[in-house]
């Protein structure tokens, strides 16, 4: 519907502006309720209630927060690099907005139906780092500098397994379309999953994607660039008011964008399980429910696990995720070239996923925690 060209029979430039406005408004509402949702969900994880006072069940808390943030003073430190500092929030925000332009929320619902949609997404998301580095360097603050440098190192590293895990899916789309190189069009990728989502065929790629996504989003356990207890917020430590809220907006908008993206690529987007012929509202609902599931997973992980150290983060990326994603791609290639059945894809990938999960929790399962307290012997004065 939104892909229809042109929309509302308007001149193309008005048409483009109208689409951007629609997506920005939708995004703002989603972000406001994501912050509210996060506060509620995290509160329940932590045995609290979360916002209750503003509106029924605290429903307008997000709006109240937004109004408060806009009303706050916009402070620029004396030794900040003025233009770099002031433009950094926009430089981080614009790539996320551009990613939202190509996501298909339902069949033919989106702003632009790009043939290279998937390529566009990770090409544009790479630009995010520029804004974060600008904030880190321009703030004139050492915490911000550390945060910016950490963010750059982390995001560049994790982009590689992220892209390879997506390429694994793209390879299969080739087979689904009857040979050829496959497609990068997100709308087509969703439509190809009418019968089964790609998570069934590629659980390992999905796990790698999810892990790398957490890292790209600076979410726990990879929230090293914004580590609250170490560098007090990292690259946006010096921001306040509207510019700070731009960073928050970016954070939640990119979380949403990534979730929709992941839902389209791995969970069948709008096509699965109701089929490509379902009513648009069902398609839209199915995409949104899947993306909310993604987001709840992110919240769950965030409230549960502590933070990794920067070197552990790097070694996890280069020594675990990258080799595993390469092996996955190689296996896919072999299976697809010889035209072996797709069950083999699912089997090999599931084995890989099991191996990855084992690597992640190997020490925690080997040492039952109840034994740990018991192993501490009493020395010295005897217990009487």
């Amino acid at each position, binding site marked *: 519907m939104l892909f229809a060209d042109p929309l509302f029979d308007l001149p193309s430039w008005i048409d483009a502006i109208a689409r951007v406005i629609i997506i920005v408004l939708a995004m703002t509402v989603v972000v406001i309720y994501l912050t509210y949702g996060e506060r509620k969900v*995290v509160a329940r*994880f*932590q*045995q*609290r209630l979360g916002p209750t006072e503003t509106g029924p069940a605290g429903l307008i808390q997000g709006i109240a927060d937004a109004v408060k943030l806009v009303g706050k003073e916009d402070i620029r430190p004396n030794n900040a690099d003025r233009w770099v500092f002031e433009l950094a929030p926009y430089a981080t925000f614009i790539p996320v907005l551009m990613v939202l332009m190509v996501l298909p929320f339902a069949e033919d619902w989106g702003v632009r139906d790009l043939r290279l949609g998937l390529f566009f997404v990770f090409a544009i998301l790479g630009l995010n780092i520029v804004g974060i580095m600008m904030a880190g360097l321009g703030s004139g603050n*050492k*915490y911000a500098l*550390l945060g910016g440098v950490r963010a750059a190192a982390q995001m560049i590293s994790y982009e590689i397994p992220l892209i390879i895990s997506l390429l694994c899916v793209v390879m299969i789309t080739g087979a689904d379309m009857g040979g050829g190189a496959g497609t990068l069009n997100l709308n087509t990728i969703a439509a190809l999953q009418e019968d089964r989502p790609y998570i069934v065929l590629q659980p390992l790629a999905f796990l790698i994607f999810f892990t790398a996504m957490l890292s790209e989003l600076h979410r*726990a*356990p990879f*929230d*090293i660039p914004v*580590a*609250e*207890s*170490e*560098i*007090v917020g990292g690259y946006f430590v010096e921001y306040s008011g509207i510019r700070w809220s731009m960073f928050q907006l970016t954070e939640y908008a990119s979380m949403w964008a990534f979730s929709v993206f992941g839902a389209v690529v791995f969970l069948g987007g709008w096509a699965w399980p109701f089929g490509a012929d379902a009513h648009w509202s069902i398609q839209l609902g199915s995409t949104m429910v899947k993306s909310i599931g993604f987001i709840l997973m992110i919240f769950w992980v*965030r*409230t*549960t*696990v*502590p*933070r*990794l*150290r*920067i*070197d*552990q983060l790097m070694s996890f990326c280069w020594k675990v995720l990258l080799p595993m994603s390469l092996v996955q791609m190689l296996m896919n290639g072999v299976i697809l070239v010889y035209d072996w059945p797709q069950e083999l894809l699912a089997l090999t990938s599931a084995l890989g996923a099991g191996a990855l999960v084992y690597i*992640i*929790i*190997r*020490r*925690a399962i080997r*040492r039952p*925690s*109840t034994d*740990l*307290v018991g192993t*501490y*012997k*009493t*020395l*010295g*004065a005897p*217990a*009487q």
Partner: protein
Amino acid sequence: MTVWPEERTATIDAFNTVDMTINVGPQHPATHGVFRMVLTVDGEVVVDCEPYIGYLHRGLEKLTENHDYRQSMGWWDRTDYLAGMCCEQAYCMAVEKLGNIEVPERAEYIRVMMSELSRILSHFMFLGAFGADVGSFGTSFVYAWRERERIYDFFEEVSGDRMFPTYLRPGGVQMDLPEGYDARVRGLLGQLEQGLEDFDGLLVGNEIFVERCRNLSPVSKEDAINWGLSGPMIRATGLAHDIRRAEPYSIYPQLKFNIPVGRNGDVFDRFMVRMAEAYQSIKIVEQCLDLMPKTGLVLNPDLPKTLRIDEGECYVRTEGTKGEYGVYALAKGGNKPYRMKLRSPSFCNLSALKQMVVGHYVADAIIILGSLDIVLGEVDK
């Protein structure tokens, strides 16, 4: 070939990066109060650490010298403000030793029970705050907060105040326990044990947590002794040094409990020792409830309205929650002590910070500082 000094420096400078100093604190979420340290970092690695203290200095010792023996009680609560009862016990023991004051047996049991509850509370706060240091987004902190509020409810019931109960008195405790108190304490102990198990699942069973803390900044036994560490810090290295056993006081000789020790003194061992200690404290409180005389005085009735102590000098060691909590007291007549000195365990443990932190990552420096479990009220007095 002769290399001129200027040229040499220029060559070296071209390959070297400049160290950066980062100021951590006094307003920083990881410093647990108003502690400040200036880290010199080479990239992410700490090469130097300079701690600054004194932001919470309230002149505790001087204040005590200028107040009546009983008036000073409230100041001593505020040293280790997470375990007020332990500090009160140490102070009261010092005054009692100076003035040869007898304490009724029931009062001794109540005191030990209260200070062990304080110890559980303080260790819970450590577990929670340490989880937050490692980056567990407040979940562990809120879990700790729940148990802390439960224990504070019991303090409030006996004394009217939560954090600073001022419940103990030289010669006993302020007033007897309310009716049905011991049965409710037994119920509380079950909840506390459940709370500890929650932590066990949340943090100790977590791969990332174990990975972050294991073999981080191990301290040898010799170093621990040389640096004057005490409490869980020294027990984590494998030395079972606990004042409650090494130089027993109050009714501790009659109680059965173990001293948990670690293996190699790393951050993980410090965490586990505190956790195991909380289990032991639960056992101690249970025994206190069992062995406590059901009736009897709780405050020495022979004491005058104004406590006057002629001459004397003493040093009292107790096992505070952070380590050896020692009080040196000197009386020269009158209703005030001539000199009071606090040997605060946090301060002594903190003095080894630089040796532990240098060579680690910034993120680890924060964890190591957290594992010292300092309370700034005690460090700055």
